[in-house]
């Protein structure tokens, strides 16, 4: 124990000493040097473990006073006080940060709605045939649940209770099991709606809407890479992730299903229709059969609705542009047009929105195709005369999508057995509500139907409804969620108060200019700068929390970006992906400790850390991929907002 203390303290001492060695003599010190001194000292002060918000506040105040004193000694105290209170008030009335408590509240509510048990079970049954199915289901469950809640600790603990025993009993290697849980649990930090992106947006002055649109695909990509890694491992080393035994895959069937599949075969649609036709005088009430048939046909219904809406949208006469043209001249046709075309601005968004929640294969394909298809006709400005109500011909892409969807649906129903129907019903009550909540919140933000604040509030409302639907809504659940929300928001927002005073002092001292000059004098290329900055952030992720890294160090990096021609939005995506690694880097990764807290003593911390390493490597690969192919992140915001 003693050794570690001396080691830690000597590091701190070494940092302080080296700061003073590199500083010029006090007589030659300029304000800029003071700024750098402040930056060095604050890192040391944070490492000493005092609450960071107040460290920043106190240090910012002192150095702001130094800065003001060098200008006008008489006014220095008053100016410092004014600066502090104004900065505080600006955080209090910050229209970006306001969505943090709302998203946090939504997360706590969703967590307490307790869907995770069902979600994991249904997903691992649905994926039983995939190699490494339990680990894959773990990552997917984590991705969805962590995205909706955003609470790393709770997700890792819950999965440690649910998935770890399941995987260990199925003979999975401890490392792979631990890695899948910890890596999956941290995905919620990246995949929007995440608090980290709001904090970055508020610090860097980048639109949260664009950040959300941009982070969506990198997040999905990271989750997909995790899944791919697990599948490859399971294929190459079946010992690490053996396939599920037959008895683990059995889905218990209700009585009616057994009778019907015994007499008509296992296919759901055929069996149910035959049963309804009365070929069979069973003791199964017709209502049950009709209800099951309706549930079984849901994918087809949703697909039809989506295709129908898409058809309406893509063939709708274009009048959005026409309206604008006509506004200049006369408004004679405007009323008429508004009447039959009140929707055209919305349908593309709505369609994609409506289609996406259905994550079964056909509709996802439709959704993916719907957005570009629907957007395609818009740029063509037709002459005003044409805009009077004729339906356009649907583009080829639409028919291709339709054909593919129909084929997928046909294949789906051909293999739709009663066992699959049971799995589908389980998914319907666990996976789809969450996916719908996430996509509804994201969709309204990304398509500009609501501000992030409004969407966050609606998400919280959705969380309340979800908890109510699962019979978990009571005063104590709401009360606990509210108290936790208050604590978490106070933690983040007070940190913002501190950092905003601190960065004001840093700017006043001119520390920023000194850093800018120094970086520019290094004459780096863009790639060198990007690699260097990401390495610095990666290293900072070891001793510091992501909140501290973003609020203290982003204001230093952001002003350098224009010089290197880097989009702050893109930089933000890289930083968000990069900080993911901080959650998995031993020995400080919190995720490992949460997992250790609920795992049997035989699972050691070292095994967990070892299991996390490959996933950390995947994160670095994802970071490189995003850097080499910026389109992964930038495509969606560019399509939507340009």
């Amino acid at each position, binding site marked *: 124990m003693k050794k570690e203390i001396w080691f*830690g303290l000597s590091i701190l001492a070494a940092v302080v000493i080296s700061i003073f060695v590199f500083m010029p003599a006090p007589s030659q010190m300029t304000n800029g040097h003071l700024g750098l001194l402040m930056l060095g000292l604050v890192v040391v002060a944070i490492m000493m473990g*005092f609450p960071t918000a*107040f460290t920043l506040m106190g240090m910012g105040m002192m150095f702001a006073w130094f800065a003001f004193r060098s200008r006008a000694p008489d006014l220095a105290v008053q100016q410092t006080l004014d600066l502090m209170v104004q900065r505080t008030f600006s955080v209090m009335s910050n229209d970006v940060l*306001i969505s943090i408590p709302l998203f946090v509240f939504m997360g706590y509510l969703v967590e307490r709605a307790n869907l995770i048990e069902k979600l994991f079970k249904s997903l691992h049954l649905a994926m039983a045939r995939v190699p490494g199915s339990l680990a894959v289901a773990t990552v997917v469950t984590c991705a969805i649940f962590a995205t909706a809640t955003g609470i790393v600790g709770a997700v890792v603990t819950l999965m440690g*209770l649910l998935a770890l025993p399941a995987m260990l*009993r199925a003979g999975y290697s401890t490392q792979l099991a631990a890695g899948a849980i910890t890596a999956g649990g941290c995905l919620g930090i990246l995949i929007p709606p995440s608090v980290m992106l709001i904090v970055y947006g508020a610090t860097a002055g980048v639109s949260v809407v664009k950040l959300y649109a941009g982070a969506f695909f990198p997040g999905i990509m990271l989750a997909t890479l995790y899944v791919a890694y697990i599948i490859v491992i399971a294929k190459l080393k079946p010992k690490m992730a053996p396939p599920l035994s037959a008895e683990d895959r059995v889905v218990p069937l209700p009585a009616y299903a057994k009778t019907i599949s015994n007499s008509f075969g296992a296919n759901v649609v055929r069996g149910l229709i035959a049963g309804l036709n009365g070929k069979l005088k069973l003791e199964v009430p017709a209502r049950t059969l009709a209800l099951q048939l309706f549930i079984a046909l849901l994918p087809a219904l949703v697909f039809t609705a989506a295709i129908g809406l898409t058809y309406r949208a893509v063939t709708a006469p274009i009048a959005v542009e026409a309206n604008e043209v006509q506004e200049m001249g006369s408004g004679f046709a405007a009323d008429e047009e508004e009447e039959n075309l009140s929707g055209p601005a919305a349908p593309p968004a709505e369609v994609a929105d409506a289609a996406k929640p259905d994550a079964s294969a056909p509709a996802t394909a439709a959704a993916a195709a719907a957005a570009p298809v629907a957007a395609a006709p818009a740029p063509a400005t037709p002459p005003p005369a044409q805009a009077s109500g004729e339906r356009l011909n649907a583009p080829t892409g639409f028919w291709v999508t339709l054909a593919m969807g129909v084929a997928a649906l046909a294949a789906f129903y051909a293999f739709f057995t009663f066992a699959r129907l049971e799995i589908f019903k389980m998914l319907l009550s666990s996976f789809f509500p969450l996916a719908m909540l996430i996509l509804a919140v994201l969709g309204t933000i990304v398509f500009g139907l*609501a501000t992030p604040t409004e969407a966050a509030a609606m998400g919280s*409302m959705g969380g309340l409804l979800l908890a109510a639907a699962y019979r978990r809504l009571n005063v104590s659940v709401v009360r606990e969620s509210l108290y936790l929300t208050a604590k978490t928001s106070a933690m983040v927002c*007070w940190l913002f108060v501190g950092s905003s005073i601190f960065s004001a002092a840093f700017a006043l001292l001119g520390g920023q200019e000194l850093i800018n000059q120094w970086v520019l004098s290094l004459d780096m290329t863009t790639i060198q700068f990007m690699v260097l900055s990401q390495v610095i952030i990666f290293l900072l992720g070891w001793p510091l929390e992501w909140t501290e890294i973003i609020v203290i160090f982003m204001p230093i990096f952001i002003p350098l970006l224009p010089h290197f021609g880097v989009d702050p939005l893109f930089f933000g995506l890289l930083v968000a992906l990069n900080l993911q690694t901080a959650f998995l880097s031993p020995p400080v990764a919190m995720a490992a400790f949460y997992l250790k807290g609920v795992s049997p003593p035989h699972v050691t911390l070292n095994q967990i850390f070892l299991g996390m390493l490959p996933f950390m490597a995947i994160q670095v690969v994802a970071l490189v991929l995003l850097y080499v192919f910026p389109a992964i992140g930038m495509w969606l915001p560019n399509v939507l907002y340009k």
Partner: protein
Amino acid sequence: MQKIFLFVDKVSTWLGHTFSWLMLVLTLMITWEVFSRYVLSNPHPWAFDVMMMLYGTVFMMAGAYTLSQNGHVRGDVLYGFFPPRLQAGLDLVLYFVFFIPGVFAMAWAGYFYAGESWAIKEISNITSDGPPIYPFKTVIPIAGGMLLIQGFVEIMRCVVCLNEGAWPSRKEDVEEVDVDKLKEMVHVSDEDISKLEAYIVTKESETK
């Protein structure tokens, strides 16, 4: 002495708890406002200001509560390994170096800031004819003052810890990761975990 600590803790916690209900108000208000705007076509110009005030009030007033629960983020990469006495000593010094001056200056400046606002009965300038903003600005000195009082209690805690070599206990409260509650939620008991342990051990001995 311990009585005074716990009393201040209680006040901070009560304030934090009470004001946290404003989050629910905020959620319902925005939901209603969105409904009112899109469905009833009846937006309210004051909605934005009120949203801001609710959010700002909640987090400011929860500051002391969070401090009383030791909930403010710390860089604990080294701190976590220190023995309690060293932790308390460091905290004690830094409370006087950073916390007291910083928070006192904020509350002091906030007092005059709010006073000026009250004097002119300031209204929000986000919309014309906005709602009065001086009560909102008053939150700064109140929250700052409460934080300062809680800070003194924390300092006393450090002193107690320096004397006794262990941190005095805190009031119990909801925790973000309450393992027992989570276990109950997913129907896993400690027995299940020890059974799993036995299972792994037997299987490992089989393979060896």
